[in-house]
């Protein structure tokens, strides 16, 4: 039936992660550092309010934009935590996870022939969403020597007059890199100079260590150019609830709401009620999770450096991205051989773009015990490779 598939779908490459997932699925007793979601369960108070909403019979559609109460609460929250000001009436749209928000942004603003500038490496869905929206992608390489921060020189190098949208995804999956104010200001100049829109995927903004997140949208003059995307999955361990959002200029939000109303109608109502509770009373639970991630982050960075590998210190998200090129293996070879010999699953850096070559992504959304065992196994694997 393949010939029924639209060409742009048939030719869309499958996710590099998927390929690896299939391989892992065939093996037993695997310790996985391959997961991109929290190991915590959603805080009880949040779960309880989801349950309560069901007991109350809150099982209908919400308005397309999402419960007003949630948008209002979000507006306060963004103003308090990230110095962002969005009107809950016209500037916030609740989506089914940040993933939908990314897709909506791409579909609402891109036309065939447009180019999207995407950090490399970065989360797997930006390029496919751009392609599905008829656009094409120019990767903006980022390097370990810059702590994987995006630099204007690289942006200028890959820029084309067809570029319309720049994706900024910091804290970054897979590298754990962050961009502080000084890093973002030159990018803002670049964006103004070339009259670009920005998709700021700030989904990991709560997970930073020794640093406070600076949102691109909060920089002078950048609010109207930015579509601020985030959600509850990572901060509040709510991946399965599917609640995200996009905030931005009312014209753009209106455009996205049109697509959203025809394709999704609204985000799940139970998740929306739970999200309200998360904003109101799960800050301490969130902070405890951040503290736990921070311990694990330090343990993994220390562990990889002890093995003799270069590992820059990630200051955000929950991934470390060590350089494994000393072993003489490519990212894919390393991940495959490690899995077969030591039953540890990590994700090859190349699953997130060509600049991920030479690196592996290890998630620390695992218990200390699992991380310690994984480090032990990776260490003996690396030792064997370095001694050849």
């Amino acid at each position, binding site marked *: 039936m393949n010939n029924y598939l639209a060409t742009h779908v048939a030719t869309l490459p499958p996710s590099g992660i998927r390929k690896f997932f299939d391989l*892992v*699925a065939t093996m037993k007793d695997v310790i996985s550092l391959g997961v991109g979601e929290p190991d915590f369960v959603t805080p009880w108070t949040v779960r309880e309010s989801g349950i309560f909403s069901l007991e109350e019979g809150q099982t209908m559609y919400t308005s397309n934009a999402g419960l007003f109460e949630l948008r209002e609460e979000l507006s306060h929250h963004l103003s308090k935590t990230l110095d962002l000001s969005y009107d809950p009436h016209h500037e916030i749209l609740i989506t089914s996870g940040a993933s939908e928000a990314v897709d909506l942004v791409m579909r609402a603003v891109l036309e065939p022939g447009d180019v999207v500038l995407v950090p490399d490496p970065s989360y797997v869905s930006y390029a496919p969403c751009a392609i599905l929206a008829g656009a094409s992608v120019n990767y903006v390489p980022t390097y370990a020597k810059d702590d994987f921060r995006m630099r204007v020189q690289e942006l200028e190098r890959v820029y084309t007059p067809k570029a319309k949208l720049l994706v900024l995804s910091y804290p970054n999956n897979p590298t754990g890199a962050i961009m502080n104010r000084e890093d973002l200001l030159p990018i803002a100049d670049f964006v103004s100079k070339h009259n670009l829109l920005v998709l700021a995927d700030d989904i990991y903004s709560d997970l930073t260590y020794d640093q406070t997140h600076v949102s691109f949208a909060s920089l002078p003059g950048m609010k109207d150019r930015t579509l601020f995307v985030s959600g509850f999955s990572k901060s509040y361990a709510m991946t399965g609830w599917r609640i995200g959002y996009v905030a931005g200029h009312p014209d753009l939000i209106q455009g996205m709401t049109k697509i959203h109303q025809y394709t999704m109608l609204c985000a799940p109502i139970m998740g929306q009620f739970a999200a309200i509770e998360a904003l109101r009373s799960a800050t301490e639970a969130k902070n405890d999770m951040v*503290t736990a991630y921070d311990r694990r982050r330090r*343990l993994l960075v*220390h562990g990889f450096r002890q093995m003799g590998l270069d590992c820059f210190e990630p200051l955000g998200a929950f991934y470390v991205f060590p350089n494994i090129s000393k072993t003489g293996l490519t990212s894919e070879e390393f991940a495959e051989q490690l899995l077969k010999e030591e039953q540890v699953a990590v994700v090859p850096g190349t*699953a997130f773009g060509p600049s991920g070559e030479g690196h592996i992504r290890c998630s620390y959304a695992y218990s200390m015990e699992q991380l310690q065992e994984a480090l032990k196994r990776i260490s003996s694997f690396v030792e064997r490779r370095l001694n050849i």
Partner: protein
Amino acid sequence: MLSDKDRTLLKLIAQDCRLKPEELSIQTGLTVEYIEKRISDWEKEKVIVGYQPMINWDRTGDDKVSALIEVKVLPQRGYGFDKIAKRLQRYPEIKALYLMSGGYDLSVLIEGKTMQDVALFVAEKLASLEHVQSTATHFVLRRYKQDGIELMGEEETLQRLVVSP
């Protein structure tokens, strides 16, 4: 007031006091010397008052009974409740002792081998004390949660995908 770093350190120790200063150092970024000094200070200041594993005795098969006793006391002039509390806290049978607001004064947690042990202790040692007006004994039937740890049921294994973006 504790600094953020110290609070993190103390919470870590509270969660698992087996962690060695070297491990704590890796996980917090604080130096081993700082951690050792801090712990020793806290021990001296009685901020850290002991290191104990949390044991669920119900699972050991050993006989053990606990009861919470509500005690009404006549406060003594010049001492309030402290004098009698000081005396009570010396009994090894008493595992916890609190001054309460509300309908009674002291809450006493007692552990013994049998219900009779506990009843005898209450009758002979507690109720008979001068200034104690009345006692009400409530035996613990089952422990569901203690010191923040849920004791009931097996840990459910949550099925996360093995690899996800």
